[in-house]
């Protein structure tokens, strides 16, 4: 009798656990698969704004992708190409301009809270000039796309042949915070390589090798 009750209790428990877990099953990843990973960054940089609305080409900032295996995160002095002038959102700057015109004074510099972090990292003062009293500190971005160290990946070959950035990284121009779009698994790599060899890239014939030593050596 007791055994029967125990069996029923265990069976019900098992069933409930299954039902509860079933909703999460779809989200389960194998260890090492970080698909969907979207960590908060030290500066809330928006690709939606820069790559989407402003239509800045990917390679303007990630220029090493053409000539190095890393696409890299751009150095802060590259940000300063624009942000020496643009110190806050367009709305905020216009509002200050209008207010200044109304009050008949020179407009003050408006600095957004996120861009302030960039200027602080570069040890710049309120006039965006180097401040010797401050210490420059590199910005420690959280790396989103990580491959295991036993894989060799080179951006160069992919950019040169004309693979769109979005094919692997997804619609980055719509992401406020960058998210890992593909699972970056070996099967995913090999499938794409096979497809590219069979169908070409952008109408061009390519030879995307699938030998082990292409990526593992």
């Amino acid at each position, binding site marked *: 009798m007791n055994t029967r009750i125990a069996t029923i209790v265990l069976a019900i428990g098992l069933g409930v656990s299954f039902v509860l877990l079933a909703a999460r099953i779809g989200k389960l990843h194998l*260890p*090492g698969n*970080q698909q969907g990973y979207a*960590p908060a960054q030290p500066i809330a940089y928006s690709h939606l704004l820069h790559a989407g609305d402003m239509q800045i080409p990917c390679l303007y900032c990630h220029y*090493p992708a053409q*000539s*190095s*295996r*890393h696409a*890299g*995160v*751009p*150095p*802060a*002095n*590259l940000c300063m190409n624009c942000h020496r002038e643009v110190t806050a959102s367009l709305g905020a700057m216009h509002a200050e301009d209008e207010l200044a015109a109304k009050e008949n004074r020179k407009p003050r510099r408006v600095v957004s809270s996120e861009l302030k972090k960039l200027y602080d*990292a*570069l040890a710049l003062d309120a006039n965006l000039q180097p401040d010797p009293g401050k210490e*420059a500190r*590199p*910005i*420690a*971005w*959280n*790396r989103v796309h*990580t491959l295991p160290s036993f894989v060799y990946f080179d951006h160069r070959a992919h950019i040169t042949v004309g693979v769109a950035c979005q094919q692997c990284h997804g619609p980055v121009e719509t992401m406020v915070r960058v998210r890992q779009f593909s699972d970056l698994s070996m099967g995913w790599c090999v499938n794409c390589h096979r497809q590219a060899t069979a169908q070409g890239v952008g109408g061009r014939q390519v030879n995307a090798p699938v030998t082990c030593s292409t990526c593992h050596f």
Partner: protein
Amino acid sequence: MAEKLWRSLEELRSLSGPDAAEFTETPLETAGGPDRRGFLKAVGFTFGASMLAGCSRTVPRIEPNLVQPEGFIPGRPVYYTSVCGGCGAACGTLVKVRDGRPIKLEGNPEHPASRGGLCAVGQASILGLYDSQRVAQPLIEGKAAGWEQADALIRSRLDEARKNGGAVRLLTASVNSPTESVWIRRFLEGFRNARHVEYDALSSSAILDAHEQTHGARILPRYRFDKADVIVSIDADFLGTWISPVEFARGYADSRNPQGSRYAWHAQVEPRMSLSGTKADQRVVLGPGEIADFVTDLAGAVRTGNSSRAVVTAIAGRLREARGRSLVVCGSQDTATQVLVNQINEALGNYGPTIETDHASRQRRGDDRALESLIEELRGGHVDVLIVAGANPAFDAPGGDAVAKAKFLAVHAERMDETASKANLICAASHTLESWGDAEPVEGTASIVQPCIRPLFQTRTLLEALAGWSGKPAAALDLVRDQWQKEIYPKAKPNLPFDRFWEKALQDGFVQYEPGARMRAAAKPREQKEPARIPRSEGFDVVLYAKTALFAGRHAYNPWLQEVPDPISKVAWDNYACLGPQAAAKLGVKTGDYVRVECGGQTLDLPALIQVGSTRRNCRDRPGLRQQTLDALRQGRA
């Protein structure tokens, strides 16, 4: 059918019998392996551990440069020329630097001495930069301190010595840097009783002393293996560990090119199988006690053409045929033997063509007698301040323990070695890849040591330390640049302004100029001595030799080098005693058995290794060779 060659005693046995083939037909022995339960346990544990490891997520970070230098691209390597700091040979290197970190060392193909070569020690020396056991900051009596405190302490000791005329001694390995030499002189000038002593763990002091007697200058000549047609090496493993093996191996390869117009003849006379011995056309196995006799016989035969021994007559005949195109080198530590070797080379007219005294080598400058007298002084307690830099005498100098007897011992060292652990003050030294400096392996070829990374710790180069102690603190770059502007730039006479000359020297990795010709005296020694003969004794002779990848043990901290199998014995790690097969049979010793080596009142228990080449069949009949040769490896801290 060509004769089947063998490479080990095991292979020789398998060639003679079918049952000892490499892959046996019989199933592998399973005893001692895991049983089924044990196997499952191990699998379960491994799986669990891998799952656990997969659960943790470390967040990798990217820290891009704030202001990126022009032309710098992350992930793309940049190559810089520099100089290898692995030993005193100062080979030119190309350092591969990626994202600000040196990751690989290769030889600089343009460098006139090493010509693109770099040995295992050089290749592995990069690991020393990232060694977590380096001394990261100055230590006073074993406690971490800042440079201000360290400087104050040593300055007060030096001032005291300056006032009271106390004895100040600087003990270093061979200094191949011209700028360092100048600053050592400047530093010691301020004292009434100061001396600089150089020594080498693998000493060539006898060669220098012999040249002082025969040529009037205490120099190490530059040996040109690339110009020799007949090479006779007497216990000098010039392809493995002798003086500048990379340079010599390159030259040797040039003169023994099967496709080329000439193929040099090489005889190796040695008591143990060395790397050079494996390459020789004729190998003569002699016990260490017979080397001096051999050299004396050879000297006679080179003069007269005749000797009582056929092998000596044959070698002397080859040498006499190749006058001015031959080269006799000797690794003996006995000055009188080296004097004889100099006379042989002089009689053959080799000085000039194959032995250059005008471009003398700075790779070995050590003076054993100076070291001995320093040890005597130390034992007597007569040294007030002893500064040891870039050397570990407590480990590799005979009687070097005496350094602890100095009233104040300062050690400029990269890591906590036997000498540093006795020191009152340890000055943390920079790795070569973090240092500005220079090197002149042979006179007339100078290179700049170029740093490829900022010092990882609070360390200084010896140059900076010396300048600081002399009261003229300056950055090593300024010291080297100044010295080059004053000394090397005028000698090199380039049609360039100095800035451009400096940049070119950095880019090329070397500068060549013609040093002044040296006075050449007749090869008549002031006093002719009989070569020292090692007394024959019953039992075994012990031959200590440097292992190809570890030399005298300076790099024993380096696991890459410990893992390199010796090219002859094929043993990695650990210390061992090589025995010839006949000797082993007589003693009933197998490979792996422990033998106790007693020599000079010291004993050492070592695993035995049966090594062919120490005694060969053609030597067994020799009457003098009753005692077998026992090679003991002195490897280091194993």
